[in-house]
């Protein structure tokens, strides 16, 4: 089911000050995709999710779920959350402590007054799906974090909603469990024909899980795109910086050549991924650390070859993180742990124009 959000704004009043949580948001979430709202804390992503589910009332705008208007200021429509027929996994899981696993999962069906044998069958099927068979009688308080997460997922899925919403569902798990659960979630959601809206501030989670990512900041959607597009070819400086570690270098466009855009910057003249920008315009050159491939010693000149000096080296396990000094610029680079380098050594690297991203804004 497609979700269409038009002109939704929401303001909070806290200690006499107005805080703009959502600033005229327009967004279309395509059907049957895993769609992620990504952004730093306080960017309005959770507020947007809560507006979709109906736990929060926007100040203006319109929200449609699958063609049905669920909220509209102008048309004076406000369908309460219990009538929207959605599924949601809360950040705290919100597993009811006074019920066992079965009752927690059966609840959405019980409130719909389905016959008991139907409920039993559906709950059994859903618990099997999330691999919690045999846990029916277990009290909710006797579950591990990962199990609670799966009960919450089962409860959200059991009513076969067309849309399921996730509010940072992995943030309460420890790092290792988070990684496993993320993979599991991907598998679960991949098997279902369902629209999933997923809120997170974790860029790895967003990249790994999503079909489409919307990056938010200060109540606005900055950019929407597939994970690879957002990572490699973001239009906005904020997005490029937020989605991964990036070296951002000030540059000025010199001209265009052979499908590449040539810029002048602290690294010299660099051929970049082609972008339609007029000569002389101020831009930002974005280079991800993993695309700076360091070789020892100074090297000959050539296109996009840069000479520098190792400023510092930190061993972080699978790689060294090195800071490379080139004139006034300091670039972060990932260096193979078996390269024999130490601080002060001269180094060279060449940059693939495809990975030199130009950001106009």
């Amino acid at each position: 089911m497609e979700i269409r959000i038009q002109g939704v704004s929401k303001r909070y009043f806290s200690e006499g000050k107005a805080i703009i949580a959502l600033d005229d948001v327009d967004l279309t979430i395509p059907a049957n995709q895993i769609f992620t709202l990504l952004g730093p804390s306080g960017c309005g992503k959770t507020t947007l999710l809560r507006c979709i589910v109906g736990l929060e009332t926007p100040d203006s705008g319109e929200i449609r779920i699958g063609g049905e208007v669920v909220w509209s200021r102008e048309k004076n429509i406000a369908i309460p959350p219990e009538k929207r027929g959605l599924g949601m996994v809360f950040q705290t899981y919100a597993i009811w402590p006074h019920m066992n696993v079965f009752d927690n999962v059966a609840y959405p069906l019980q409130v719909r007054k389905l016959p008991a044998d139907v409920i039993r069958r559906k709950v059994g099927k859903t618990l099997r799906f999330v691999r919690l068979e045999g846990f029916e009688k277990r009290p909710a308080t006797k579950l591990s974090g990962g199990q609670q997460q799966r009960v919450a997922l089962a409860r959200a899925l059991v009513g076969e909603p067309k849309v399921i919403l996730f509010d940072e569902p992995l943030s309460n798990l420890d790092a290792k469990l988070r990684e496993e659960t993320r993979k599991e979630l991907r598998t679960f959601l991949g098997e279902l024909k369902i629209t999933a809206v997923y809120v997170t501030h974790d860029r790895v989670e967003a990249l790994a899980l999503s079909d489409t990512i919307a990056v938010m900041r200060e109540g606005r959607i900055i950019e929407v795109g597939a994970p690879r597009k957002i990572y490699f070819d973001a239009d906005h400086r904020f997005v490029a910086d937020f989605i991964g570690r990036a070296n951002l270098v000030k540059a000025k466009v010199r001209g265009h050549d052979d499908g590449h855009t040539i810029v002048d910057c602290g690294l010299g003249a660099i051929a970049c991924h082609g972008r339609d920008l007029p000569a002389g315009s101020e831009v930002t050159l974005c280079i991800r650390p993993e695309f700076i491939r360091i070789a020892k010693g100074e090297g000959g000149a050539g296109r996009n070859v840069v000479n520098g000096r190792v400023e510092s080296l930190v061993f972080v396990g699978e790689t060294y993180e090195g800071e490379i000094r080139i004139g006034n610029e300091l670039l972060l680079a990932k260096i193979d742990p078996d390269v024999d380098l130490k601080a002060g050594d001269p180094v060279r690297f060449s940059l693939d124009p495809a990975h030199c991203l130009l950001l106009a804004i």
Partner: protein
Amino acid sequence: MDPSRSKLTYSLILIVGVLTVGPVVMLVLGSFSEGLTAFGQFTLDKYVEAYTDPALLDVIVNTTVFVLGSSLLSTILALFLAYLNNRTDIPFKFLFKILSIVPMMIPHLLFSVSWALLLNPSNGMINLVLKNVLWLESAPFNVYSLWGMILVEGLLDLPIAYLIIAPAMASFDVALEESSRVFGAGTWRTLVRVTLPVLRPAILAAFILGVVRSLASFAVPSVIGMPGRVYVLATHLYQMIATGFATDYGKAAAVGMSVLAASVTLIFVYRALTAESEKYVTISSRGYRPTVIELKAARIPLFFVVAILSFIMAVLPVAVLFYTSFVPYSMVPSARAFSMMSLKHWSAVLTDPLSLLSLKNSLFLGVAGATLGVALSIFVAYVIVKVKTRAAGILESLSFLSFSFPGIVIGVGFMWFFVQTPLYATLWALLIGYIATYLPYGIRPLASAFVQVHSHLEESSQVCGASALTTMRRIIVPLLVPGIVSAWILMATMFVRELTLSVVLSRPGTEVLAIQILRFADDGLWGKLSALGIIMIGISTSLVLIATLVGAQFKAEQSAG
């Protein structure tokens, strides 16, 4: 915040403020007034009169010795028991649990009475036995003394001290002790140099709470102190307002001011100390079992000490009252005594109109008071937990204020208030006073219940398609019920036994159980007293048992679904 919530917060601040700060204000104003009938005419006479009273010096010395002595006794005993339970291989550890919940069942008044029955100089049972056995001329013990008061109050405050020290002892980081052992210190030296200093905040907190409680105590000073003419501040106050021809509420208020000030100060110190003790104990490593010290040869003797203490705390008082309620007059248990047993006192009590009136009044106050008190507590706890504004913070401090108010002093404050109103000498005056003084007992369990109900739990039910009513019925109420039940029971048990506030506010026609028992004690009618006392214990014990059962039932339901 939406306006309805802030309206609720402010009206609660108003109600709780009137209930807790109101009597204090009236106490202050009263202390500067000529008398109950001449309220508001400023005078310093009462202060001059109260503090130049030559008897006051004796009273203060007695109070100091009584308060420090009993707190020291309860703290040392609690420390001893907590250490044995948490750190040694002493057998039958369930005894310690009994020790910590006993005061819920046996009201202080009756505990004191039972000791008077055992150790009074003229016909105390232990004294009679010892006189016979040892061929003594006079009774070896006189409980009607400062020492007797210290002993009984110390035993009464033992459970609360234990409840403060034991958790600190349990969560104590054993690595601290182990490192001391590694560096060459023995068990005893480690105890003195490491364990006790680290536990110091908890120990001090237990001691100070003991001081506050014994300062506010009325049962022991009246039942054990007054017959021996040992007066402390609480009984000194009581004399001014309840005995003699001219009651003087102005003078009582003037003296009460210092008691109140001392008590409030001590509670602040106590709060600071508990905050610090929590800081200390959080160092503990989770899931780590502390090493158990083997008592070896001392195991059995130490166990006997604990067993005797448990017997004294839990069994003896009830047994003595039971026995006394059946025998015609005080006598040592013997074949003759058992042959003379009858239901005389029971039938006397059950046909005595005053006893029946007091029973009726206490039951009414217990049921109506707890119901109203819990209703108020639900709203207060809701605001404290769910509405996190500055006003809610003020409400929280206000509602826990009465913890530090000595009952008899705050009773004098209420008296100054009620005589200005038609509530004077009605049960409603007692009801209001009870709720105000015991409000924290209702708020505590409810606040922790509300903490459990995270807003996501409600919202999640909504998203699942449940209406507001269904959410209320299936999610919110079941999560709150255990809190409501325990708050109700706690308040009801406190109200059924209430003594200190009642001695001030109770008037002919509004007698309550504790007042009637005190009257029997004054008249030496021990048999009737014991019968009525057993009824009182029966009521509070069944309330506690119901609470435990309901709690267990609820837990079972939760796990069974």
